[in-house]
């Protein structure tokens, strides 16, 4: 299974390809490489954050509250209205996928050694800009024009690395080399 490092490598590779195609005036090749690069940067972040969530999900269940456990395992929290657990909440087997930003916020708040995530800061603002671009690609609509330039893919790569570094520093207490 590919790791976040692999996805970052793929993203960089597509970025280089886009840059070359752009220099040669091959607009279509450049565009599809930019799309691939930006999405792969996002996937690298997802991979890293999901695996970190899975680390905590491997701990004995009673180390977390039920909502936390539901978030960590991305499963639905449900209220039981029948059976032996009637009247209680439980983490069900039904998947409930969470937004990447929520997972990052949770990890930093819970294990960030008391530090806070500055949502008004440059990194988070850049992250939100990349998310916007990513949403435009994955949820295309004719009402807006999806235009990508090299700087978008470059920003996405930088943001992915910076987010991974930031979360690893806050949660693991060490920056990983990228």
């Amino acid at each position: 299974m590919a790791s976040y490092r692999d996805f970052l490598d793929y993203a960089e590779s597509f970025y280089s390809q886009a840059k070359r195609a752009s220099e040669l005036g091959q607009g279509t090749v450049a565009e599809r490489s930019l799309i691939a690069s930006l999405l792969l940067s996002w996937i690298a972040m997802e991979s890293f954050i999901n695996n970190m969530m899975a680390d905590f999900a491997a701990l004995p269940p009673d180390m977390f509250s039920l909502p936390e456990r539901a978030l960590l395992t991305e499963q639905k929290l449900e209220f039981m209205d029948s059976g032996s657990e009637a009247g209680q909440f439980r983490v069900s087997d039904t998947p409930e996928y969470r937004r990447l930003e929520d997972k990052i916020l949770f990890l930093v708040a819970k294990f960030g050694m008391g530090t806070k995530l500055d949502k008004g800061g440059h990194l988070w603002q850049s992250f939100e800009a990349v998310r916007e671009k990513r949403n435009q690609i994955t949820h295309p609509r004719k009402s807006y024009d999806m235009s990508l330039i090299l700087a978008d893919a470059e920003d996405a790569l930088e943001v992915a690395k910076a987010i991974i570094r930031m979360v690893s520093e806050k949660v693991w207490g060490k920056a990983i080399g990228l």
Partner: protein
Amino acid sequence: MQILFDSGAKHDPNVETEVNQFLAEVKTREQESNSPIIIYQDGKKGSYYIKCTIPAKVVCNFLDLNARLDPTNDASYRANRELLLKHHTYLRMRTDAEEGREFHDLIVEYSKVYNPEKPLKVWGGQHRSKAIQEALEVKDVSKDHGFRVYFGLSKEQRTDLALVSNTNISVSNDLFDRQLEETLVGTQLREWCVRVGLLNQGEDFPDQASRSERISVQLARTFLVNFFRGEAEGAKLDERELDRHVYEPYLCQSGAFLDPEYEEVIRRLGKGLWDNPQLIQSGKAFALLHQTQRDAVEKGKDIEKRKGFKNKALTASVLTGWSFVAGLLQSHPQRLNNLFQIPKATREFPDPLNAKGMSTFHHDEDEATYRGLGTRSSMKDRQRMAQVFLAKSTSPDTCLDKGLLNKAVSQVRAIRSWKSGYSPL
């Protein structure tokens, strides 16, 4: 001929008698030229010795290359490393000897306590001695060689001599360990390993573990220390607490000094240590795991026949992790029993330690150069392997599949983060 004590040497009539006996038996060049023989005394350990020159044709028959640290104990194995007769350095020595090279400062002990027909026990220069013998035997070359001959050595002086003589050449820490073990502790560790099946009858610890496929002194000591460290820790924890800690399996130091943790275990537990039934049971279970792993790799069709796979149990992180957990679970018999169960081989998991799965394992925390679980001896790997075996102990049929490896390593990482940065929300 005249025998004198050096000005720095305290007169000892017993030593003088032994020197006389030696000179009566072995004809040196000094005797031929009627030069005085001077008895020196080592400033650090107080050992007595003389310097002399002896022709090969005289000395060869007296040389004993199987010197023992404890001459009175038949269980004492030869203390020196194995002769490397195909090593290029030795081949060069032999050619030199055949071409008339004279060697100097060969270190021998004069002793007739064992193998009396060969009273010169070689402690330093066993390869040169062998080269001298072969040059005489094969090419009839006999040159004069310089010797330091020691007399009346105590066990401590002898060990020191063995260690000092071997620092001139590339000698492994495993050889130091073996020598120190026998001198300072005895033969019990080796006997214990034979008893539980980690060594065969008559087999000794290797003098170079990296080239051997046997348990080393360092690893055998490590097994014992971890078992008792784990046992002490496990006694303080209830079942619920067991999986909420990251444990720190210990790796004994190797080399010229006895590991302090091992020394402490020996001091604290005394002779009862070697007959401890729980330790023996765990030793046997580990030996069975090791043997099953070896057999699976040697005989299995679905696994690469790599030495590293075959001897996976004897890698530092695996052995430390397993022995620590075996101790930890002494207070938790059901889980101990689960740890001891060796999973049935399947096509997917032909070997109990899943060596291939371990070798390809990688966590996001790891550098890109990480070589997989159970390959290094670092604390991080030892902690991870302890958690792997702890996870294995949760049920009897659990095998070390990818899911278990992932879960165990995730737990190590998550517990560390939990302990350092958890904030109840």
